[in-house]
């Protein structure tokens, strides 16, 4: 499956905008992502290992909070988007 990396986080993922992983759940996919790019871990997880509250994850166009959180099953054709808060406007 494909994980889309938003602009603010690309600097921690070798400037890549998408990373392909092979996983069964959202949690596994993120585990693989952060194993390859450890710098991302600090931005996605708290020190206690919980997903940060301001990190929104969408499996295709659905918020994983309303699916099965990190346990949500994923398929090869799915896209996982990390949707960060951005505030610019001036």
């Amino acid at each position, binding site marked *: 499956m494909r994980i889309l990396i*938003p*602009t*603010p986080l690309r*600097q*921690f993922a070798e400037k890549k*905008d998408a990373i392909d992983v092979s996983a069964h759940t959202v949690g596994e996919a993120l585990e693989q992502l952060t194993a390859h790019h450890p*710098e991302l871990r600090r*931005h996605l997880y708290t020190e206690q290992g919980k997903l*940060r*509250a*301001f990190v*929104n994850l*969408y499996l295709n*166009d*659905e*918020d994983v909070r*309303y699916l099965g959180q990190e346990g949500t099953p994923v398929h090869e054709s799915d896209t996982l*988007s990390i*949707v*960060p*808060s*951005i*505030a*610019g*406007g*001036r």
Partner: protein
Amino acid sequence: MATATPVEPVTLSNDEILRYSRHLIMPEVGMDGQLKLKAARVLCIGAGGLGSPLTLYLAAAGVGTLGVVDFDVVDLTNLQRQIIHSTADVGRKKLDSAAEKIKSINPYVNLRPFETRLTSANALELFRDFDIIVDGTDNFPTRYLVNDACVLTGKPNVYGSIFRFEGQVSVFATDEGPCYRCLYPEPPPPGLVPSCAEGGVLGILPGLVGVMQATEAIKLILGKGEPLIGRLLLVDALSMKFRELKLRKNPDCPVCGPHRTVTQLIDYNEFCGIRGEEKPVDNTLPTITVEELKRRRDAGDDLFVLDVREPHEYQICNLGGYLIPLNDLPKRINELDSSREIVAHCRSGMRSAKACEFLRQAGFTKVKNLTGGILAWADKVDPTMPKY
């Protein structure tokens, strides 16, 4: 017997009919729609990147009452994207500059300028006289403030935000739809997400996003089409891809949920973890002024100048320092000699303060932060150096 004050019926003059003819001949707008636009009252927060296109288009479209909240002054770095302001406006209040352009595009607009910073103390009062709020602000505390004030006053929040070449648009805080807090219950910690001033923004992007916000505002006024309620539109201008995500009303939302706990405006700086004005990370950090650095370099002192900016910034101007971008510092720390005196600098001094703190924790004792960064050097030592 009480007599109600007669409400002036909204009508269009012949001049206005001609002006709006391309609207009037469309069935989706027509005379009814144009009168709705004239009767509408839209408040734009900010007359900057997003505010520029959206106020211009809303004025041109015939929105009757247009409020604009801004307290800033036009500077040269704004002109790359804030198209409501022109070169001659540098140094003027944004509100004055914007008012002039809006009035010249459409003198029929009842313009209501508010020269103030939007705060928890004035937001509810300001919002009261408007039907729709358009958020063109640039920071997290104000984003949450606009959202909460919209929920509390029952006004839709036409939201847009941008970063580099990425944008987000949605319509929050309608009766049936989610609010900004349903999407982002908590703000990111300060410093984690760079602002446009720190991270840059493609000049056309606020144009693209601001015009989409204007489109949503007009659709809400007309009551036509499908507004972006419960949908988040993501724009990536680099790949020119638009994606749409489903947003849901969070049943546990502290502002718009059934068990709401936020029933009045709060301190949004505190909520976003910002205490007081921009504070340097650590005020015990040793610093050096640009004048002192110049004097000591001229005297031939052994100083190692460490530049923690990005390579593309180094290309714009530099002090001949050794370049290690802040994010690369942990893995490149072995390139530095802890026995030498190190002066770290960046553009304005924020990133280099973080670098100094990191180096001190790593056991470097002779590190100093260059106060004011390379901008201060350009201001006080070398006026020929470009500023950015």
